[in-house]
């Protein structure tokens, strides 16, 4: 029987330890679940197995032969394929052409269409998808069918192991069942499946074995049914709470933001919320649950389908430009691409929203922009040579301070912070917590999305959990536990 083994794998990204001696064994004919919180290292481990990343330390073996793929194509040739969240298919090629891409059968210099059709229809048949038109351009297929095509391609290329990276995140409920049927077919044919998912109910339903990761280490494995969801959650959480959180005693004031049954274009499906002045409200949940989409909808970056929003005395959806005017500010989770204009200077970044404030007769005054920036550089302790330095030269923590300073400079009343401490060092985190605390104590309302539960428990007044597009009822952060929040987040 085939066997894929990873032993003692370690991987660092800069100062962050993603994997710290993790081990895993997947057998042929087995569906093996891999679970863990965001940042636990499960995706990193999968990408090392698929040849996307290289491990810093540890060994891997495939059927007892040493295995160290340097690229995805090497892994694929060795017999390991990965089905990505973003499907790796060519929309302009037909279904059959996608299945044989990279190993097209040729006869007399020309493509052997009969063989191509035979290979593709044979593999589609195994999954009960023989009704698919082999000549249809792939781009005209629904997502679920595309996933099947990608699985067929891996099988047709002779792969023994297929790694799935959260394959259900873009599927509806009925499509999930079709995918599960395909996974069972793979299992019955002796293919080994590694299945990464956030959703424990899926793991219990489909997986024969599960491995749990926490902070880059394996905290347990076994049969998901006999372990039970409660035990799996316990293995996922339980980190030591660091003593770096700041939460002054605050008294909530009037309601500043209220959302009623908000429904976005895709996510969230239903979110209701009230946030008061002088309050920090945390939103927990897994990646892809719809937290970012919710925040973006509130700020007018994404459209809404139904529901009501009220900010202060303003009713309804507004575009970002109006939201700034209404005293709402957003810090994006994607600092480099969306949060900051990375090649502009500190002063340009801080004064970017409603930059007309700094103009006279149409001419921007760089002196006044500089003066505004200098105040925040001093106030927030942004480490830089001058305010005219490019933001790209700053450390992650200082970049984040610039992003937040932008909100403070406008004196925004409602701060929407999406993963405000992602990828910054501990000292900077502490400073960000202080800024949040000062803002709330000063009468601003803060909504903070984070994947790191200890942080939410330490900083927020109330915490609501988003699960599959639904926002739960907020609970008091002082009495909530990591375990309860995680159970709600994984839909247990």
């Amino acid at each position, binding site marked *: 029987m085939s066997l894929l083994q990873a032993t003692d794998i370690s991987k660092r990204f800069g100062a962050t330890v993603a994997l710290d001696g993790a081990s895993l064994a997947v057998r042929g004919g087995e569906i093996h679940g891999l679970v863990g919180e965001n940042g636990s290292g499960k995706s990193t481990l999968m990408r090392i197995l698929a040849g996307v990343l290289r491990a810093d330390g540890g060994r891997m073996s495939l059927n007892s032969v040493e295995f160290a793929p340097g690229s995805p194509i090497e892994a694929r040739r060795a017999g390991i394929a990965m089905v990505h969240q973003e499907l790796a*298919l*060519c929309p302009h*090629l037909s279904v059959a052409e996608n299945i044989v891409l990279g190993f097209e059968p040729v006869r007399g210099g020309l493509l052997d269409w009969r063989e191509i059709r035979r290979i593709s229809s044979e593999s589609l048949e195994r999954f009960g998808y023989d009704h698919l038109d082999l000549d249809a351009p792939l781009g005209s297929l629904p997502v679920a069918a595309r996933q099947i095509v990608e699985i067929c391609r891996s099988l047709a290329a002779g792969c023994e192991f297929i790694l799935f990276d959260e394959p259900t995140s873009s599927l509806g409920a009925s499509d999930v069942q079709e995918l599960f049927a395909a996974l069972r077919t793979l299992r019955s044919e002796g293919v080994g499946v590694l299945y990464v998912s956030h959703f424990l109910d899926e793991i219990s339903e489909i997986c024969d074995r599960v491995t749990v990761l926490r902070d880059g280490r394996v905290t347990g494995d076994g049969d998901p049914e006999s372990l039970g969801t409660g035990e799996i959650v316990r293995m996922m959480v339980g980190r030591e709470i660091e003593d770096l959180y700041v939460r002054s005693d605050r008294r909530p004031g009037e309601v500043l933001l209220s959302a009623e049954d908000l429904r976005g274009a895709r996510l969230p499906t239903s979110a209701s919320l009230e946030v008061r002045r002088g309050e920090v409200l945390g939103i927990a949940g897994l990646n892809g649950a719809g937290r970012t989409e919710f925040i973006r909808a509130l700020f007018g970056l994404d459209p809404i389908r139904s529901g009501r929003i009220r900010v202060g005395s303003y009713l309804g959806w507004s575009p970002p430009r109006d939201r700034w005017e209404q005293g709402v500010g957003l810090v994006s989770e994607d600092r480099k691409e969306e949060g900051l204009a990375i090649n502009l200077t500190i002063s340009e970044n801080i004064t970017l929203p409603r930059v007309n404030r700094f103009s006279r007769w149409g001419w921007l005054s760089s002196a006044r922009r500089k003066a505004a920036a200098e105040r925040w550089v001093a106030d927030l302790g942004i480490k830089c040579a001058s305010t005219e330095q490019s933001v790209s030269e700053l450390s992650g923590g200082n970049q984040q301070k610039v992003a937040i300073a932008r909100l403070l400079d406008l004196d925004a009343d409602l701060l929407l912070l999406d993963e405000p401490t992602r990828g910054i060092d501990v000292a900077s985190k502490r400073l960000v917590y202080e800024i949040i605390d000062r803002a709330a104590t000063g009468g601003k309302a803060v909504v903070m999305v984070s994947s790191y539960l200890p942080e939410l428990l330490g900083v927020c007044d109330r915490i609501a959990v988003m699960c599959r597009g639904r926002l739960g009822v907020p609970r008091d952060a002082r009495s909530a536990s990591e375990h309860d929040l995680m159970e709600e987040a994984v839909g247990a």
Partner: protein
Amino acid sequence: MSRAFARMRGLSNVLGLLIALAAIFALFSALRPDTFPQMKNVETIARQTAIVATATIGMTFIIVSGGIDLAVGSVVALATVVMAVALRAGAPPMVALLLGVATGVLSGCVTGAFVSKLRIQPFIVTLGIFLIARGLAKGVAAEQTVHVETTWIRSLLAVLSPDKKWMILPPGVWAMLALAVLMAAVLRHTTFGRHVVAVGSNESAARLCGVPVGRVKFLVYVLGGVFTGLAGVMMFSRITVGDPTVAMGLELEVIAAAVIGGASLSGGQGTILGSLLGALIMRTISSGCSQCELPNWVQEIVTGAIIVGAVLLDRLRLSRRGA
């Protein structure tokens, strides 16, 4: 979502182009019934189209792979100059012809190397070659037209002599059509052709599946160079001199032909047949306009409107189908 859908898309595109071509032909025939629908005029249009169409065959491959080539016009001019200089130096016509093609191949190799090995955007690389080739052409020709005695190369695109009327169209046009059929088959029925589409459609997916992306890109530009060189030969056949200032803006006409023919500048989409029809449509319009004695500026406006209109129509057609 069905096979019929897939076929229909390709077919409706070609059908649409044929209808457009017929409509344009009918319009000018109605306006100039004595001259426009005559065999002599059709032959003229075919001869004029041959140059653009030859270059368009290579350009279609480049655009389908997600690339672009802005240097076509300059390289064509350089090729005419190289051929003329070679002939003047006493080279046999066949050698001159091969040197003309080699000029294109060389520029294709340079472009391909920069794009695939050094990963510079093809727009930038070919913008550079666009200037370099034009400069070289002027330098080699000492900024003058290079006159040479006429050779058999001229007969490639010349008006057929009475004893050769059985050919219906000049040999250059037939050569172009034969190459078009060949290259359409290469694009559709060879591994290389499908890899070109795959690279243009989703480069990272192609790489993941083991498609040699760098090599495909390199070959695409070399192939483009072959056809640019051949277009240079045809141009020489028509003007019979080496002219460093000829074919200004030809590259844009070539790109426009491919785009009218349904190619997408974001890659993955385009057919040889479509591109040829695109070239034919543009040439028919300009021929019709000049026979109606419309000034050049009107032609330019009409052609511009048609380029944008064709893409707009394609977009509307796709969005209505929800694809």
